[in-house]
């Protein structure tokens, strides 16, 4: 049996290993090593916990069985999941962290002796506060992530669900969470604890339903952050350094990602944290509906343009993920490269449904990561490029964001696709993008619309090259 001091040292070591795991992600070369540090840190934390409790009785076997069941399910999912489903997977995983935090808080509330927190009804005040915070944030993470998961899976409609009085209701619930936490701490009543959990589940649900599908990158990052704060809350309760460090890391990681995503969409951070967003005015969509001439072409035209180009920039978006076109795209690029055409990829920060979504899909299709560029890195290159190939992206290329102060997306950083000599725009129809606004790019002199499924069109172009 380990002494408390010795196990605290080991927990500190695993906390440090977790920091190194994130540090490794600063470049793809060191990332695999980073992941190994993470696994090592986790192994140490789990082993130390077993040794510090030290009772290798019936309980030990049962615990191992539950651990193995979870582990097998997790491993199975990890091997089976297609890369296009990564946003759903991450949302699903967040919900599990949230629920686990809730369950640990419940276990600690019901049996505080096991955690040295006092006895039922006489839990130490500090621990009870920490426990309540951990449980409430965990519950919010759980129900919020479930909604995000359902929206990403398409089981629930991706469009925002709003109703009158939504924000006052949310505010009321948040206030009551604080009041109930206060009452819980002064009375130690278990009923209040259950009520706290229920309304926390409810608020998580209410916070996410008004947020639309394309805003999911922010939501996922935000829930990532919440799951970290929940873990930290429980870490304080359990007086566990590894958990506190990890919670802080994950919490700030998610917060930074949400900040980056918000900036990519030109939205305010606090707006998102409070959940009062996604209810963008959709009225703009009906204006400007007059017919404007559009040039459309087929795979043959597109292939001709690309064959005569010396440099091509590819702009992928969520549509590429939906059409599973990343492999077909890579094949097209391979053919282009054989003809000595320079190809690079331009990724907008909010392309796809989660941070880095496009990069993973391209990596899956064996696109080398040093051909893939972020918005700031590549935006000046569009002027010198011959062809921009927009596949499944829309709003992130809309020049209106730079020119029309009336537009809802005005001020959002966009890729300067229109500066290319010619633009090939693969899209199924002329329908406006998520923001509900027309894309001026469709009507530019140098734009050729390719109306087709992204995957099929890419394959056809390859045949014609």
């Amino acid at each position, binding site marked *: 049996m380990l002494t408390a001091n010795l196990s605290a040292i080991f927990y500190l070591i695993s906390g440090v290993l*977790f920091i190194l795991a*994130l540090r490794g*992600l*600063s470049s*793809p070369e060191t*990332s695999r090593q*980073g*992941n190994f540090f*993470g696994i090592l*840190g*986790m192994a140490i934390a*789990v082993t130390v*916990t077993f040794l510090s409790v030290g009772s290798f009785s019936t*309980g030990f076997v*049962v*615990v191992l069985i*539950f*651990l193995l069941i*979870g582990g097998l*399910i*997790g491993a199975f*999912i*990890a091997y089976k999941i297609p890369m296009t489903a*990564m946003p759903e*997977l*991450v949302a699903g*995983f967040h919900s599990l*962290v949230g629920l*686990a*935090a809730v*369950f*640990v808080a419940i*276990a*600690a509330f*019901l*049996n505080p*002796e*096991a*955690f040295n927190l006092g006895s039922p009804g006489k839990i130490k005040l500090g621990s009870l506060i920490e426990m309540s915070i951990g449980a409430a944030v965990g519950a919010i993470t759980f129900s919020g992530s479930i909604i995000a998961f359902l929206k990403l899976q398409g089981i629930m409609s991706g469009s925002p669900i709003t109703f009158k009085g939504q924000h006052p209701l949310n505010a009321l619930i948040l206030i009551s969470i604080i009041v109930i936490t206060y009452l819980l701490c002064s009375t130690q009543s278990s009923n209040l604890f259950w009520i706290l959990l229920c309304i926390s589940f409810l608020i998580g649900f209410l916070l996410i339903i008004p947020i639309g599908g394309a805003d999911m990158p922010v939501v996922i990052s935000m829930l*990532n952050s919440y*799951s*970290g704060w929940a*873990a930290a809350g*429980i870490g304080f309760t359990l*007086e*566990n350094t590894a958990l*506190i460090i990890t*919670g802080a*890391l*994950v*919490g700030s*990681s*998610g917060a*930074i990602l949400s900040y980056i995503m918000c900036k990519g969409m030109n939205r305010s951070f606090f707006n998102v944290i409070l959940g009062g967003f996604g209810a963008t005015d959709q009225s703009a969509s009906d204006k400007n509906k007059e017919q404007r001439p559009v040039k459309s072409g087929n795979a043959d035209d597109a292939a001709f343009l690309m064959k005569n180009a010396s440099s091509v920039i590819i702009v992928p978006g969520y549509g590429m993920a939906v059409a599973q076109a990343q492999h077909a795209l890579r094949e097209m690029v391979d053919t282009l490269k054989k003809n000595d055409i320079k190809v690079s990829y331009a990724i907008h920060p909010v392309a796809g449904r989660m941070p*880095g979504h496009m*990069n*993973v899909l391209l*990596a899956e299709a*064996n696109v080398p*990561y040093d051909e893939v560029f972020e918005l700031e890195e590549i935006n000046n290159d569009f002027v010198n490029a011959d062809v921009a190939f927009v596949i499944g992206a829309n709003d992130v290329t809309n020049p209106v964001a730079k020119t029309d102060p009336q537009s809802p997306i005005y001020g959002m950083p966009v890729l300067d696709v229109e500066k290319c000599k010619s633009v090939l725009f693969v899209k199924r129809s002329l329908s406006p993008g998520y923001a509900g606004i027309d894309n001026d790019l469709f009507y530019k002199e140098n734009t050729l619309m390719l109306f087709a499924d992204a995957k099929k069109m890419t394959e056809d172009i390859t045949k014609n090259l």
Partner: protein
Amino acid sequence: MEIDPFIFRLSIFILSIFIGYYVVWSVTPSLHTPLMSVTNAISSVIIVGAIIAGLAGNSDTIFNASSIFGLLAISLAAVNIFGGFLVTQRMLAMYKKKKKDK
């Protein structure tokens, strides 16, 4: 007067937020998805609390309410730990540099 141990934990927490802030800003944007899956996996270190709860009972009380919640939490966190690290590994294995001979 002695300092409450809570203050020490709070110090660790605050300093870790700063570490997290600087470490995450240095993560390259192309690895943001693996970042999310790996933070997911490591936040499941909450399993240590679940194990304590699960092991708290002796053979008579292993299936009391507290232990059952502990055991369920163990399974949930284990799904995340194994799933999170493995899927991260799978993703990271795909990131390749341009081959020189091309």
